[in-house]
């Protein structure tokens, strides 16, 4: 009997480019970034004032920023998520803006704005019966959640899982990354020789992961297969990634092993934050895992900022889009390719013909790595 496969059968996102995967893809292909000045809080104390922000979501509303974004995804009819889908939420700080407000106002609504309290709200919005759980793996949360969804389906524990991912630009996270001196004073330039740090961003989205049998039975359109996944830890430092890239390479190898012999990688949607250490570590990892078989590497974070726990979901969907088109999006803000990244990263869009799979990788705070192998389904 053949192994059960995990297909992504529907998905939607809201990013700084707007609503929808198509809008995100066309925004990327335009070569123009979607970063802008932050107005929702005072940025004067920080080293930067730029971020990738979703239009129309605001501080001070009854709903948190992430719930405002998620409502746009789920309040329109026809998202087609079955009620029996298992629920996994990926987020690093959830409704942290509500907590900021509760503390500032001395409110007792702390229990309404913890990471766990996001679950019943997401459950209600999505319309599933499962109360779900939150996967936290810092900025690899969404890719780890997609891996968990895929393993749930392939193991037969469930035949349908919805992954909801969201994070927002709040004063809390902006203060935190600024205090870590991790923000670029101008704009993030992943894989650039002159990169100085990241630019924060926000996004929300979902992906419905279904078994091949159920997807076919229900006549679902198939966007792609989560054909392999690998998760590893650096065991290095709470804020600094591995210096040699071995743990990420291990995660990539594991994901590729699952794809089986003959897997060809067309491109790599990298974490690519724009910090000196992250980007260097990633190129080392790609070199370790793929050797001379270079595949074009791109990052979305120069275009949209770093949406933390949501990044992995947006990136997986863009990676599938790139597979569909046989070309990467451009590396926006990449001007002078870093010596280490030469042959891997390119400023412009790069075609890659003939490949049936792509990689999407994330490496989060605390040294957590996730690699997804995404494949075409014929």
């Amino acid at each position: 009997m053949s192994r059960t496969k995990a297909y992504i059968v529907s998905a939607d996102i809201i990013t700084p480019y707007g609503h929808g995967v198509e809008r995100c893809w066309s925004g990327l292909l335009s070569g123009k970034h979607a970063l802008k000045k932050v107005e929702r809080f005072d940025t004067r104390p920080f080293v930067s004032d730029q971020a990738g922000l979703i239009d129309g979501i605001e501080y001070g509303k009854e709903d948190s920023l992430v719930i405002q974004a998620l409502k746009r995804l789920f309040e329109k009819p026809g998202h087609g998520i079955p009620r029996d889908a298992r629920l996994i939420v990926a987020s690093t700080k959830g409704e942290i803006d509500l907590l900021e407000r509760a503390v500032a106002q001395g409110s007792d609504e702390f229990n309404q704005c913890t990471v766990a309290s996001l679950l019943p709200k997401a459950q209600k919005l999505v319309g599933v019966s499962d109360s779900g759980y939150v996967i936290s793996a810092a900025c690899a949360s969404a890719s780890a959640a997609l891996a968990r969804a895929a393993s749930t389906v392939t193991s037969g524990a469930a035949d349908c899982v919805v992954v909801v991912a969201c994070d927002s630009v709040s004063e809390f996270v902006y203060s935190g990354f600024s205090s870590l001196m991790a923000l670029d004073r101008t704009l993030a330039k992943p894989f650039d020789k002159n990169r100085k740090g990241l630019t924060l961003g926000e996004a929300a989205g979902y992906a419905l992961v279904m078994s091949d049998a159920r997807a076919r039975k229900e006549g679902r359109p198939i966007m792609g297969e989560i054909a392999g996944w690998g998760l590893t830890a650096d065991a290095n430092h709470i804020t600094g990634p591995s210096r040699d890239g071995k743990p990420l390479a291990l995660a990539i190898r594991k994901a590729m092993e699952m794809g089986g012999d003959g897997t060809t990688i067309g491109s790599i949607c990298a974490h690519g934050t724009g910090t000196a250490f992250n980007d260097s570590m990633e190129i080392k990892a790609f070199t370790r895992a793929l050797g001379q078989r270079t595949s074009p590497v791109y990052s979305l974070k120069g275009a949209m900022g770093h949406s933390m726990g949501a990044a992995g979901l947006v990136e997986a969907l863009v990676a599938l889009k790139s597979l569909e088109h046989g070309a990467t999006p451009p590396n926006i803000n990449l001007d002078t390719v870093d010596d280490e990244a030469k042959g891997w990263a390119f400023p412009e869009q790069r075609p890659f013909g003939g490949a049936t799979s792509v990689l999407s990788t994330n490496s989060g705070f605390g040294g957590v790595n996730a690699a997804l192998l995404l494949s075409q389904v014929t």
Partner: protein
Amino acid sequence: MFINGMGIVFAGGSGIEKFEGALAGPWVAPNSHNEAGLPSYQADLAGAGRQDLLKKIRRADKMSKMAVVAAADAAEDAGLENLAAHRVGVILSTAHGPHVTTFKFLDGIYDYGEEEVSPITFSNSVHNSTCSYIAQTMDIQGPTLTVTQFFHSFYNALSLASLWLADDRVDYALVGGVEQYGDVLSWIVDQKLTTAKDGMIKPFNLTPTPQVPGEGAAFFLVSKTAMGKAYCQVDDIFLGWDADRAIKADIRVIDSDGMAPDESAYLACGSSGVPMAAYSPLFGSMMSGSAFNMAAAALTLKHQRVYPNPVADNPHNLPLLPKDFGVDINRMSCLRFDCRGEAMGAHLSRA
């Protein structure tokens, strides 16, 4: 899946011997009261071993320190050394995560301004930082994940560990639950739930159960095969519970601790006649307290020793575990209901 090692940090101290001593001993009153007079069970790491590890992570918050000590103890208890040489994964479950540190960082913003906030505090406020400290101190390069949920986070984490082992992703998994006490949390639960003003959680009162916040960490080293000192086998992790279809167990350990406003769902457990135990009065009310109760069940199976209910008030005439339970204990059931009456739990059997 077998439980081969355990590590526990709780109000009664650090280590399995301390925990077993607490299970065997009489109920002990909460060791702390805050300014409002609200009781709590708080862990004291000063007396914990592992000062070498604690020194390595001196900048970590208390949540991470408790978890690192418990995880290291679990690996040592199982006899697993040099973790870098093995395929080990870490799964941490929590309901509230680093909430104390999150508040501390927010307070820093308001008290000192954004320019003066601590990058270390921000790092520690990230929800998976505890997992990362475990990986860092124990040199673990396998998968690490944090599972957050109010009531069933531990059983979901255990289920994931089982899947990783079945998928051959890891040979060993360190899976555990951790919660940190905070005055804000104490105040909130006092507002929303029924506080045991006398400090005594009465886990069989159920309508409601009075709560006393606790804190601590309980970790398990699990693998597909039994190692030399295996405590027990985890036969299955179940979702949903039905008295008529429940597998017959010799003892049922329930997680009632007052963290849900109404815990009357546990009353149905009494109809089967299976003796019931609940140990929350020893470590306090914690949404991931399931890990501590499962540790008690694992000790019971391994040592074939009955640990009597520390607080045996029984207004509903439930079949409580007798002190002189004189039969072999082959199978135990651990169970937690959430606030909607949905159950998750695990069946354990002798190794």
